[in-house]
Every structure is written in C-alpha cells, then in structure tokens.
C-alpha cells in the first residue's frame, strides 16, 4: 500500500478527524504550556541526554529482541521475535513514558505527581519515577482493579505513593482517569498528571508516543541487524495503545510492514462484556480526545470488560483510530480464554510468562500463522511480564 509521509498530529493535536484537546478551561492554560515545553524538549540536547541516561542506567534499555525458536517451530509459518519490554525495570514498557514525563514535570517546576492506573503497571512505573526523583505521588485506581491487582498496590505503597481507590462508575480504569482529572483541575498549580497511554488531551498522545517510540526504533535496527531485512508483521496488544504505538511508529513509513493491534474481546465481541473499542465502537469524545469509543445509543460510555485490567478501557488512543481509518494498521480481538491459553503457551514454549494484556498479542499469533501464505516474520511487543497476574491466573493452572 502507498503511505503518505506522516506529519501528524497537526498543531492542535488532530490526527485527521481524531484527537484534539477537549479539556475543562481550568486546564487549558497548563496544557498550552505543556505543549510549548514538549516542543522545546524535542530539540533540547540536555533533556535527551538526561532521558537517555535514565532509560539506559535505570530502566535497563536497550531491551533484547529475542528470537522465539520453539514458538516459531510450533507455529510453523511464523518466525517470531519478541521485543522484551518485560525485562525493563518494573516489568513493563510503562517506565519509558513515566521517566520522560517526570523529567518534563520537573522542568515545569511541578512538585506533585498524579496518575491513573488499570493493571497497576503504569501506577507502579509512576510511583517508581516519583520515588527516583523524590516527588510526592498519588495514584488513582479503580476499586475493582485494586482487588484484582493487589500486588501492584503493595509495590506502589512501598515506593511511597498514596493509592486512592475509586468507587465511582465501573470502578476500573476509566473511572480512575475521571478522578485523576478532577484532582488535576483542583491542584493545577503544583501538580503534573502523568497519563499512561497515547490517550487524553493533546499533547499527551503525541508526547507518550514520543517517549514510547524507542521500542520500535530499537526493534527496527535489531531486526535489520539479525535478519538483514524488515519484518513482515508487527503485533501488539491495544488498550489505550501505548506499547502498540511505541512499536508501530518507527515503522510507519515502511509500507511493506503490516501492523496488527490486538484488542480484548473479553467474553466475546458480540456480548456486552468486552473492550474491543476499534472493532465495535463509534466515534466519540472521552477524556480529552476524539477517538473510537464504546457507547450506547444515547452517547453514554459503556463499561468495558477484559480479564486483563490494563485493556479494560472503553476508549483508545486517537492515533490508533486514525491508523485504522487510514488502513495503516489492522485491529483484531482476542477473548479472555484465548489470552489465558496464550499465557500458558508462551510460559511452556519459551520460559517467559507474559502479562495478561500481552497475552492477547501472543494469542493472535496462532491465528496469524494460519493466515500467512508461505513463511512470514513477526515482531511481537512483549509489553509486560506476568508476575502481577499470578493471583488471578492461579485458578487456571
């Protein structure tokens, strides 16, 4: 396919019809300042040096691109490489973004950090970065998620963060985000909101993409070095979509590389319990941007479901909606059972226990293996490790 050179988002944060900045007026001044600061840091060598230092010395970059030989043999038609973001400090890709944002927060003179979290991985990565720089940290987490991801709650508390369970709405990620925004509106003068995905008000989607795009940059050169060519496919799970965008972005102009995002089908996309926003949603506005959204006939946001707390969100980052609409990426879905089976498969085949979120991407490998003609190569973003899911997964073992 032919791909237009990418210059998105535009100045006001739009990706075609998606994106933008739908914020309460109280936040607009700060968001405008943040946009200016973001433009500055993109060219600022001091920022880049500091960010690179922490990614390398603290988080553990670069991560390996591991050739999963036994899994590849099992799948027959696919040559599978795993981008090992699970090996990063705190166990997921989320730390790339929180380190970037906390440096921005400090440059803007903010002394208090807030964040929302679903699976707790972004909460842990935020609490980690806040501890690293000695900043006060408050994490909003749906009461339902506090229960199913209790280990991550302990980790956040150990690092000095205050975890506030959110009892409103569906008590999951979307409600945690509402509550974080309410906190931010109230404490706008000293507080920086570290959003965990390529979602939210402009400039967050592009800022998070920029901090996560290291995943794809590394993977691209590692794959070229090993295979002397580009991969045929990229595969990543999509909740808000930060690990997927992080992997995809560096390959945007490589038109031969096909991108597949895997959403959570929960109990099935034809039930009312899923998180397959791009498969089943309609265009809407939630949490600051226009994107695909799970909503009812009146425009009320529907409650999402997934076995993976990190995918349990009725929206998706606006750039993914744009990728879908323009045909640059394809979005598919995997249900709860398939994800759990994939978690077991990768554990046995490669001795790697993936997070339940990541397991959705792994699960799609078997379907992709049946789709390809001849042989194909694929990079899967192994976005996080499964340690946090052991309580939940124990009943399936």
């Amino acid at each position, binding site marked *: 396919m032919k791909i237009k050179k990418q210059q998105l988002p535009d100045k006001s944060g739009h990706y075609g019809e998606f994106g933008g900045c739908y914020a309460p*007026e109280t936040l607009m001044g700060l968001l405008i300042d943040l946009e200016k600061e973001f433009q500055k840091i993109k060219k600022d060598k001091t920022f880049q040096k500091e960010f690179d230092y922490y990614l390398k010395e603290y988080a553990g970059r670069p991560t390996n691109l591991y050739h999963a030989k036994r899994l590849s043999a099992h799948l027959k038609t696919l040559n599978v490489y795993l981008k090992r973001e699970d090996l990063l400090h705190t166990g997921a890709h989320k730390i790339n973004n929180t380190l970037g944002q906390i440096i921005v927060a400090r440059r803007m003179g903010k002394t208090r950090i807030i964040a929302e979290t679903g699976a707790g991985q972004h909460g842990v990565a935020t609490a980690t970065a806040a501890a690293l720089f000695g900043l006060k940290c408050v994490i909003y987490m749906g009461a339902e998620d506090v229960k199913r991801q209790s280990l991550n709650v302990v980790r956040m508390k150990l690092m000095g963060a205050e975890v506030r369970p959110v009892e409103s709405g569906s008590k999951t990620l979307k409600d945690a985000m*509402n509550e974080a925004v309410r906190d931010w509106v109230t404490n706008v003068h000293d507080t920086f909101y570290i959003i965990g995905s390529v979602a939210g008000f402009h400039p967050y989607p592009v800022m998070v993409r920029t901090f996560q795009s290291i995943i794809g940059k590394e993977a691209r050169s590692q794959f070229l070095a090993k295979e002397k060519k580009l991969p045929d496919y990229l595969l990543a799970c999509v909740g808000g979509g930060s690990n997927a965008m992080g992997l995809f972005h560096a390959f945007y102009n490589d038109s031969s590389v096909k991108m597949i995002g895997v959403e959570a089908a929960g109990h099935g996309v034809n039930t009312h319990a899923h998180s397959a926003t791009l498969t089943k949603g309609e265009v809407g506005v939630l*949490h600051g941007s226009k994107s695909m959204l799970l*909503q009812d006939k009146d425009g009320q946001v529907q409650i999402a479901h997934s076995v993976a707390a990190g995918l349990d969100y009725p929206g998706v980052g606006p750039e993914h909606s744009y990728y879908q609409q323009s045909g640059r990426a394809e979005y598919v879905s995997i249900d709860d059972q398939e994800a759990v089976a994939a978690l077991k498969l990768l554990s046995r085949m490669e001795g790697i226990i993936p997070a339940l979120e990541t397991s959705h991407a792994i699960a799609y490998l078997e379907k992709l293996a049946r789709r390809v003609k001849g042989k194909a190569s694929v990079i899967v973003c192994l976005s996080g490790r499964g340690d946090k899911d052991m309580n939940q997964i124990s009943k399936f073992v």
Partner: protein
Amino acid sequence: MNRIDLTFKSLREQKKKAFIAFITAGDPDLKTTHDLVLAFEKAGVDIIELGVPFSDPMADGPTIQASSMRALQKGTSLTKVLDLVKSLRTQTQIPIALMTYTNIIFHYGDEKFVKDAKACGVDGIIIPDLPVTEAHVLTTAAKKADLSTVFFIAPTTSDERAKQIADASSGFIYYVSITGVTGARQATPVTTFKHLKKIKTFITKPVCVGFGISTAEQVKSVSKVADGVIVGSAIVKEILKYSNDKNLVSKVAKFVQSLAAAR
C-alpha cells in the same frame, strides 16, 4: 435576541443581577424536574441551567456525579430532556440552558442538536469539556439559530484567551470561581474577585460566576462584581435531602428563594 439575552437586558435596565439555578434533569425524576423549574421561576430564579446527565462527568464533584448517576438510572437521555423543555414551554418562558458533556451532543449530532433544541425551546448550551478551540461546528450552527453558546473562563485563563472565549460566547460567560470541580464550598477565594474585576474591564458580555457557591452570603458578595451567580450542587443536595418528602418541590423552592433574594 433569545430569552437569555432579553433577561440580561431587562436585568441590566433594572440594575439587577441574574440568579441562575442548576438542577440535573431526571433527578429524582423528570416529572419533579418539570415542577421544580416552574417553582423556581416563582422563587425568583432568572435562568435555569438544566443538566443532561453523562456517564463520565469529569468536571463535576461528588454531588453532581451522584445526581447524574441517579438520573441515568431513571433512563434520562438528551431526547427526553428536550421533550421536557418542550412541555415546559407551554407553561413558562423562563430561559433554559442545557449543561452536558461533549460526547452527548457530538453523538446526537451538533447540527441536529441545535435544530431540535431550538425547536423545543432551549435557549443555550453549556459544555464544560468543550473549549472554544474545538467548538467551531457547534458555534457556527448555534449562531445561525440564535442558540446561546456559553463558554468558560477560569482563574487560570490568560487575558488573551479570555478575549477569544468572550468572542465565541453568547448569552453569558461562565466564570469558574475556583480551580476545582463543581461542589458546594463555604467561601469564594479573594483572588477570584480580583481576576473577575480584571477581565470585566475588557469583556462587555454578561459574566456569571459558578462552582462552589452555596450560601446566601457568597451569592451576595459575588453578585457585587459579577452579572450573575450560578448555584448547582447546593440545590442538588437539597433535592436529595427531600427525595422522600412529598413536599420536595416547595421545600427546595424555599431554599432557592433564600439564595435568590441575597443577590
């Protein structure tokens, strides 16, 4: 000139300030909302701000969040609220502005909303998560139909931006008295008055102050500098307090009257 403009014109001539009352449509039910609007008019309310509930009201504090949830559980939708206004128009000409979130209007269709709202007798629209920079489609359609578009100015808004917001606003401008979400507070910060006085030097359209106003004393002090005062959460709390009382409407109206009289 629509009903909102006419009201401000008449208030200005009488050198009076506007008292604007917010209630969530459908809490506790649409019939009660209907009766409250009529009773509020008698109690001295100048403009009604009618909340159309949204599942994720991120600019609202706990009182209006809970009220929105109760209204949604009763099946309240934008279509039903438009029908309510239509039926109210056979009995009252009090100005009515709807307050809701971007997705409700976007999902209904901006242009269709303007057309239907106008036909039902709605005078204005207030959307707390829609900044002027994203509102072009709505403001263009609303301007043609003479439906007021009320935008917000916050204590954090720069002068340059405040001018842009004032230009895009019609009916009145909603000044957010505090950095925070909606919800009753006991006092209005001193800085609010300072900033308000400053922006009033270059904004000629009516500026009304809301968020956190719950007492007669606050109504009195704020209406000295503003063109109007908006009370929401304090009224919603009263409605909840009397939810099982058959005299709910008269009791809440009495409370509203005491606030309206303080301006």
